[in-house]
């Protein structure tokens, strides 16, 4: 009885916070846009019969007819993928350094990684606008150092989006990798060296494979939210940065077409299901391995 109740809790949670909103979005994606409050038809007020009769997949067909949408999905996938790799390249050495640091430093280092969360995400992104703009801190510094004569144009380009995503999601990469490295038995590394590995070989052949779970977890934690990212591309990105989050916003706000916006969101969710399932599997394997 108690066991059933315990299992019930996460299911109710999923039902209320995931399935119900998803069904609402799905329903809107099958409706037609209208100039009314709310701006689509039919609604529940029209009765269940009308609802069933008038819902159709027209909006999904529309998405296939215009190359904008799949280009935006592809471009988002590319940006999310590149950002994830960059975050890993920056995050891994930091996590490695933290794991190798003396015990008394670790709490402080951990604190430093989490510290940025104390300031609003939006303010930190705005701070990057101040750093990267033409007359911003970075360009002033480089000009002062005599490294450049013309300001570097970084803000409002895709480069700035990468910087923003890497910066924002770095803690999500560092923490799981650190957790994996922290648990690593240092004697394995020593054994590898005793058996003839150089330090570099030991790192690539022993440390990296053993921290694989941390790398996978960190990568998914960065990739999944980066794919649907809206705030960073809209603040730091330029007009050429095509991301599905922005397309969705335009459908919703500029076209006032909630049904098409919902259809875009439903497909984004379907695309996300793949990495989420992979992530889930990885977690499960890890748990089984630990048992």
């Amino acid at each position: 009885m108690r066991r059933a109740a315990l299992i019930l809790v996460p299911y109710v949670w999923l039902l209320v916070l995931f399935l119900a909103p998803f069904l609402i979005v799905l329903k809107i994606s099958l409706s037609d846009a209208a100039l009314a409050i709310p701006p689509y038809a039919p609604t529940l007020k029209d009765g269940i019969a009308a609802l069933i009769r008038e819902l159709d997949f027209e909006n999904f067909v529309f998405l296939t007819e215009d190359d904008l949408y799949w280009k935006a999905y592809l471009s988002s996938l590319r940006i999310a993928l590149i950002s994830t790799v960059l975050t890993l390249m920056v995050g891994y050495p930091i996590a490695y350094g933290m794991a190798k640091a003396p015990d008394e430093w670790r709490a402080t280092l951990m604190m430093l990684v989490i510290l940025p969360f104390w300031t609003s995400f939006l303010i930190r992104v705005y701070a990057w606008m101040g750093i990267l703009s033409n007359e911003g801190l970075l360009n002033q510094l480089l000009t002062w150092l005599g490294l450049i004569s013309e300001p570097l144009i970084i803000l409002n380009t895709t480069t700035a989006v990468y910087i923003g995503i890497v910066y924002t999601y770095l803690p999500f990469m560092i923490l799981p990798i650190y957790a994996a490295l922290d648990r690593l038995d240092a004697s394995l590394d020593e054994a590898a060296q005793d058996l003839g590995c150089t330090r570099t070989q030991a790192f690539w052949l022993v440390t990296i494979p053993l921290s694989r779970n941390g790398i996978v977890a960190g990568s998914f934690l960065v990739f999944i939210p980066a794919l649907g990212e809206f705030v960073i591309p809209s603040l730091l990105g330029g007009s050429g940065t095509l991301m599905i989050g922005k397309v969705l916003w335009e459908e919703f706000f500029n076209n006032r077409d909630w049904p098409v916006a919902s259809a875009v969101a439903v497909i984004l969710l379907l695309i996300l299901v793949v990495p989420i399932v992979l992530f889930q599997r990885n977690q499960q394997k890890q748990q089984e391995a630990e048992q």
Partner: protein
Amino acid sequence: MKYRILGGVAAAALMAGAAVAEEVRVYNWSDYIDESLLEKFEAETGIDLIYDVFDSNELLETKLLAGGSGYDVVVPSGTFLQRQITAGAFQKLDKAQLPNIANMWDVIENRLMKYDPTGEYAINYMWGTTGIGVNVGKVKELLGDDAPMDSLALVFDPANMEKLQGCGVHFLDAPAEIIPAALAYIGEDPDSQDLDVIGKVEPVLTAIAPFVQKFHSSEYINALANGDICVAVGWSGDILQARDRAAEADNGVEIAYYAPKEGALMWFDNMAIPVDAPNPAAAHKFLNFIMDAQNMAAASNYVYYANGNKASQEFLVEDVIGDTAIYPDAATLENLYTTSPYDPKVQRGVTRMWTKIKSGT
């Protein structure tokens, strides 16, 4: 300071709570009022004023059409007002509660009739034009002393834009403002509702889009004032605010505003009361407060936009009433055009074209 300036999301969350003290919630454009007026309203009426801001009509419309926005007073522009009236988003004003309506200016009221034909739903707050803001020094440096700063050619001729590119050009992220301007540039009717005619501006805009640093509807005020960009296609008062901020900062940046000689869009921002406003009585008090001649003058003196209030004109400072960029002379007024809302099919075509222009896809 009792009033709060909040992000939209936070305000929506707070709205769920029951109001104990009497409150009025106003949703206005960003940088669009002298904030001391908000304190004055609270002192005069004893009503708590919750003041929240937005920077795009689309955002406002989405909240209104979702229903239950929780706002008592909102400020849509003309074409949006018209569409929202059709959607049933507003309640009729009770003019008995608005004695100060006698202060309003018939010239503007008549033009507003295009959007609110019966004049029952809205009062004009501010009006202005969409034009070009330039960093005079830098533009002359790049294009020479005879740079066509008063012409749309400055921003629609790729030759000019290529030279200005490195210095930075911002455009409003508002197809309903930029497309009419491009139509005026190529000599078509800026108020065209025909997708074939509207399509003619696509090559014009596509040619200059790579040189536009950003399409955004509020960042250009600071960017112009700080000297981060050279040119912005934006709203008159915003550019004049940038001019003022630059002058105050004394940073050597000189900003000027031009309503293009090929014609400029004249727009109206209007106050209306949503149909589901929680406190319509307080909303009327706020409208009446704003229509007070001295209050309206204070707002215009602060934001550098013209208003639709005749009686306020005697309280306007010379900088505002005497500046033809704000209160255009008769000849310029003649040269201003207005636009009508797009129907959903044309709107989709326009948005699609806009995305294509901006992203190349």
